[in-house]
Structures are given as structure tokens and as C-alpha cells.
């Protein structure tokens, strides 16, 4: 018995040592590729923030919009306007005294601001509510609790890390796709997405959440202390827009009310949606992103120039 237990202990210690070495060398070379969230959670952010779900995580490129921005958007599960995401923003954002050149972009859509009545508190919003420690690099809390370190994931990252979903230094999610693949696959993928969304509980039972609206308003007030805040509705495919209009036909007027109340600008880019191609109806295609972000920058520059505050803009194509 003693012999067996000793052997097991030796093997366990040796295994732990090898595990630590593998983890060390993996992090040394592939840290930023761990997953699509990790890189954003390794430091405090003392720039303007881009807030939202996967649409803004993919669509908005801070290096084009203006280098003083950091994209702190995640996914619809991790970063709708729920309490835990709000707490995470406050934890990671370093507030500066008001800087008139700093801007914050809060992207809004009916999905991000809806929830199923009665089930709002039952939804477990992944890592955002569970991260306890302060930002650090390497963020071992995140790695050991939320990252996937399986050999499949590691080998996949090591073999084609450039093509993997990852975050650039401005926090934007990179999702490469060739034009050939897009042309071939777009219609089918859009159909699948639309079907999935129509089957979702949020579509069937979801309502605009009073709690999320309150969070949005509080976030506007909080970020207004630190620069200008813009509410932006990003462009998506017409088929997707139809779904959103069915879910919440009065969404634009709701946002206009909020922007008016808090004296920030609401920009609906939906009318220009046909100018930008998406991969699945609501995430912009990688090759369109520079064009879109230059377009948005022009819009923001114009508003900044005219110093429009509290003005609501619908962009005409």
C-alpha cells in the first residue's frame, strides 16, 4: 500500500511539474491566442472604451477610429448590458479627469438590451461575474478557470495561430474569412442564423429589460465623466433588421429618448447597411472593416466638429 501511494505521489508531482512547464512555454509564445476574451483581461484600460457584444467586438477597429480607444466588447452571453458586465467595465476602466478628445462608444441593439422576463437573474453570464482578482498578466485566474487548455485547443492554436480567432492590440476580435468562402457560404449561413435566432427564447419571449436600460443610462453617466459618449447602432443585414424590428419596433425612439435625456448622441447606421458586407448577417466581414471604420470616423469627426451634443443622427447612405 505504502509503495503504491508513494508511486502515485511521485507521478502526481512529476505530472504537475511537466504541466507547469508546458503552460509556461505555451504562454510565452501563444498568450494572446488563448481565446477571444483573454487579451482584454490582462491590464487596466485607460483609453476610451468600445462597449457592446460580438458585433462591436468584431466591427469596430480602434486603430482606425482613433488610437485612444480600446475595444472592450465580448459576446452576447458575456457582455449584454447586465450587472456583471457593468461591474467588469468599472473594474477595468481607469477613469481620467474629463478629456474632451476622449470618446466612448456604446453599441446598442435589441438583443443586447433584452432579457426574458422573470429569467434575468437566472442567466449565468459566464466569466464576467466570476472574475474576482484585479487585472494581471498572465491572468492565471482567467486561464485556470475559464480558458480551454485541452491538447486539441493548444495544438490548434500552435498549428494555425494566425488564422485563429484572436484579439489585436486595440482589443478588436479578428475573424479572418476569404471572399471565396464568403460568396459561397453567406446565404446558407444567414439562413441558419435567422432560423436559430427565431428559435431562441430571447426572440420568442424577450422584452427590453428595464434593468439593462438602467445599466446603460448609469454607464453613460459614468463614462461621460471621462469624455464624450456615443450610442451607436451598427449596420446588419436587412433580414436581421427585420427580426430586430419585430422584437422591438420602437427601439430607435427608445434610444433617442435616452440620448436626449443624457445629452449624448445616438447614431443609427442602419440606413447605410447595404454598403457593408457581413459574414452571417450581423458580423462584418474582415475586409469591410477598414472601410466601415473610416466611414464611422468621418461621421464622428463631423459630429465632433459641429460639437453636437444630445443630437440624434440617422446616417443617410
Amino acid at each position: 500500500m505504502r509503495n503504491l501511494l508513494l508511486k502515485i505521489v511521485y507521478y502526481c508531482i512529476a505530472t504537475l511539474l511537466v504541466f507547469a512547464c508546458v503552460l509556461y512555454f505555451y504562454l510565452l509564445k501563444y498568450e494572446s491566442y488563448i481565446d477571444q476574451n483573454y487579451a482584454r483581461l490582462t491590464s487596466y484600460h485607460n483609453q476610451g472604451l468600445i462597449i457592446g457584444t460580438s458585433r462591436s467586438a468584431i466591427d469596430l477597429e480602434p486603430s482606425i477610429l482613433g488610437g485612444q480607444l480600446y475595444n472592450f466588447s465580448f459576446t452576447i452571453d458575456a457582455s449584454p448590458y447586465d450587472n456583471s458586465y457593468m461591474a467588469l467595465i468599472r473594474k477595468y476602466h481607469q477613469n481620467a479627469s474629463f478629456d474632451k478628445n476622449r470618446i466612448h462608444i456604446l453599441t446598442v441593439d435589441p438583443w443586447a438590451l433584452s432579457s426574458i422576463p422573470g429569467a434575468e437573474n437566472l442567466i449565468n453570464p459566464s466569466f464576467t461575474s466570476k472574475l474576482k482578482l484585479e487585472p494581471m498578466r498572465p491572468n492565471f485566474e482567467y486561464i485556470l478557470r475559464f480558458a480551454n487548455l485541452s491538447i486539441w485547443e493548444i495544438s490548434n492554436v500552435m498549428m494555425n495561430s494566425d488564422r485563429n480567432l484572436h484579439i489585436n492590440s486595440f482589443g478588436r476580435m479578428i475573424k479572418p474569412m476569404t471572399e471565396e468562402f464568403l460568396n459561397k457560404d453567406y446565404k446558407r449561413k444567414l439562413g441558419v442564423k435567422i432560423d436559430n435566432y427565431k428559435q431562441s427564447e430571447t426572440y420568442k419571449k424577450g422584452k427590453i429589460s428595464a434593468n439593462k436600460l438602467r445599466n446603460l443610462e448609469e454607464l453613460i453617466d459614468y463614462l461621460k465623466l471621462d469624455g464624450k459618449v456615443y450610442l451607436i447602432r451598427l449596420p446588419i443585414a436587412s433580414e436581421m433588421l427585420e427580426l430586430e424590428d419585430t422584437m422591438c419596433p420602437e427601439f430607435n425612439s427608445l434610444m433617442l429618448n435616452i440620448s436626449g435625456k443624457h445629452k449624448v448622441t445616438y447614431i443609427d447606421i442602419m440606413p447605410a447597411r447595404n454598403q457593408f458586407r457581413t459574414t452571417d448577417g450581423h458580423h462584418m466581414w474582415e475586409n469591410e472593416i477598414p472601410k466601415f471604420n473610416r466611414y464611422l470616423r468621418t461621421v464622428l469627426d463631423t459630429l465632433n466638429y459641429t460639437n453636437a451634443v444630445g443630437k440624434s443622427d440617422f446616417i443617410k447612405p
Partner: protein
Amino acid sequence: MLFNSFEFLIFFPIVFILYWFVFSKSYRNQNLLILIASYVFYGWWSWKFLGLLALNTIIDFLYGFGVNSDNKRKSKLFLWLSIINNLGILAVFKYYDFFAVQFQHLFEGFGVHLNPTLLNLTLPVGISFYTFHGMSYVFDIYYKRQKPISNFIDYAVFVSFFPLLVAGPIERANHLLPQVQTFRSFNFRNAVYGCRLILWGMFKKIVIADSLAIVVDLIYSDFSGQGATTLIMGSIAFSFQIYADFSGYSDIALGTAKLLGFELLSNFKFPYFSRDIAEFWRRWHISLSSWFRDYLYIPLGGSKDGKYKAIRNTFIIFIVSGFWHGASWNFILWGFIHACGFLPLLLLGKNRKNLGNVAAESSKIPSFKELFQMLSTFAFVTFAWIFFRIKDFNDALLFIKRIFVNLVEDPGQLLHKPGGILAVLYIVPVIVIDWFLRRDERNLRTVKNPVLRAVIYIGMGTLILLGLFKGSSESSFIYFQF
């Protein structure tokens, strides 16, 4: 509690140490500890269903005395009461909603609109397994293979023994109960073998099955956009995923039991080296197929009352076996397909042809004939798995149709690399290792050189440890749902 969790890595060493150092004076003490540990193990998933497990245990324990009566009528009455009770509990939790919906559809066909109340109950983990444990006890008493036991703790250990509680192997009373009622002493060789089984089982589950699951989920969740070769790759990957997942669980169960001094029934004997469907079913989920054989097929008359009854009974056990997996038409169809694969062998009297031997019994590689037989059996089994994996019948047909239509439209794709090709890296080691072990599944050989052996064990341990860090994604065993 899952075997592939950090909780189990803490739970089992504690049980092991208490078992051999604190509760080791008598087998009664050992049994008491196992019972407590089993209820903790099960209650970790949901303590609410511990009552159901206890109720099931008490009922079959009491029925055992009634079934043991010398009065044939009384014995039969208690047997039926036990069957009704056990299947009744299964029916309520597992099958009621299915039948309610089917009746609703049936009546709608006649223009009658029913609005049945659905229970929408959570299916207690392992209910099909522990119910079958209890039934085997009552059946064995009825057939005079087992005497009813008077100690309730011993019986409760038999039903709820944690290594096999939630996904088998489905033990027989006359195999496990004598071990429960005997003092277990520590055996170094057995314990080392148990550790190896646990290591290999964990490796199959965490490294092989969970990796293949990523490919399979990607391909199956969006099959309409995939090419034919990718769909074939996905189907093959699923065959190995479910094998590595379930046989991995069984290996961990067997290894854990061995460390506590128990020998459990083998559940797998390299099924993908089978040369026909009959042999496959003697090698796949053996404890379930032999359960149905002994307690359903043979009581129905087996193959003794002529060809017609043999065919009828074969279809019954395959369909019931499919239905045992879940209240859904796809499982029934899966069972039916296997029955159809078995039928020609039965009609030709070849269903017992490959009994007692294994492919390439006396050589290192199979003959061409054996290779063809193995590949064709594997192809058939893989085809049937499609209906097991895809719940919706129309989707399963679309999946298969897409393979053929896509190949006809674009035969050139056969020359290109299919999607999910990385899965091969995970499938090949399983095939190679299984092939070398095929003559004796209990002889999990080890490398003679101690340094190389240590490197292999530590390497496997590291991969398992890495795989345990799966982020927020839970990775349960496939057979937990049954």
C-alpha cells in the same frame, strides 16, 4: 460528480484512504463507507434525487423476499409488482412525455385534438442503470440464481456502488453481491492495474473523446454547409468519440472498483474489430446487451421456438435496447437498423460464427477477408450512429442524402483534405493500442522499460490535466443522459 472533474480527484483519494486505513476492519464497515460515498457522489449532481434512489433500493430489496417464495403464484406476483414498479418509475421520469406527445399526434390524425399535460421532469442521472441493477436482483432470485440477502446495507451498496452508479457497467446480482458480502483485502497488483485502467480511461475520455467532440459538434451542428468527405469524417469521428467516451467511463469505473477490491463486468471488448454485427453486440456495451439477452430475449423464448419467433425476439430486444437509450424515435430507429443488420446472420445461422475468438487471433495483422469484414461492420455501425447522434429523423436523412448528392456533384473532393482531418490524430492511437490489446481486454500491457513507462504515464497525466482545464464548457459523459 463526474469522473473527469477536480471534485472526483479530491473525493476518491479521501474515500480510498478511509476505506483501507479507517474502515478496513470488516467488510460491513467497508460497505457502510461505500454507501455513504456513493450517496455523496450521486448527491453532488442533485441531492433531490437521492430519495428516488433510496426508494428504488428499498422497494426491490423488499420485493426480493416476496419473489423468493416457494409458492409459484406468489413469486410471480411479486416479480410482476417489481417490474411494474421499476418500469413505472422509469416511465414517469423518462417516457411519459414521449408517449403523451405520440398519443396527441395519433389522435390528431383522427381529427381529435388532445391537450395532454406534460411533466417536463428532469431525468435523474443514471436512472436506467440503477433501475436495471435492482431488476437484475429480483430476476435472479426468481430464476433461483440468487438468494435474497438480509442485510439492507449490502444490498444498497450493490445498487448504488458509485463507480457504476450513473453509467454502468450494469452489474448482475449474482456477480457483484457475493463480492459485496466478502471482506476485501488490499492487493498491490490489482491496485496497480486499477490505476492503469483509470489513467487509460481518463485519457480516452478527456484527451480523445473530448477532442473529437469538438470536430463532431462543428460538423453535425452545421452539416448542410459541409462537403461529403467532411460529413464522412464527422461520422467516423463520432463513432470513435462515443467509443472513447463510454469505454473510457467503463475503464475508470473498473479501475476505481479494483482499487476498492472489486471486479466488475467488462463492458467493452474492442467492438470496432468485430467482423459482423452479432460480434459487435458481443463486444459493445456488453453488460446491457447480455442483460437484455438474459432477462428479455431468453424469457421470450430466444431462438428455440423456430425462426419466426427468433426474428421477432431479435427485433424486440434491439428496439427495446434502442428505446432504453432515450424516449425518442431516433433511438428506436437506431435499434431497428441494428436488428436489420443482425437479421441476415440469423437467417443464415451465422450469428454465432465469430464466437470466442478475435480478428487476427494468431497473427499480427488481419487477413484481407477479416479486414473487409471489420471495415464493412464498422461502416454499418457508423451509418447507424448517424441516427443515434441526430435526433430529428428528417435531419438524419438529409445528412445521409447530402453525403451521396455531394459526392455525385463534386467527386473531385475525394482528392482533397476533408474538414476535421485533425481527428485522425486522435483516432489512430486508439485503434493501434486496442489492436495490440485485442486478445485480452483485461491485460492492459505496460512498457517494460521503467524510464519509458514513466515518460508515458507522465505524458498522459499532463494531457489529462490540461484537458481538465476546459474553461466554462462542461464535458459530461454521453451515457449519463441515459
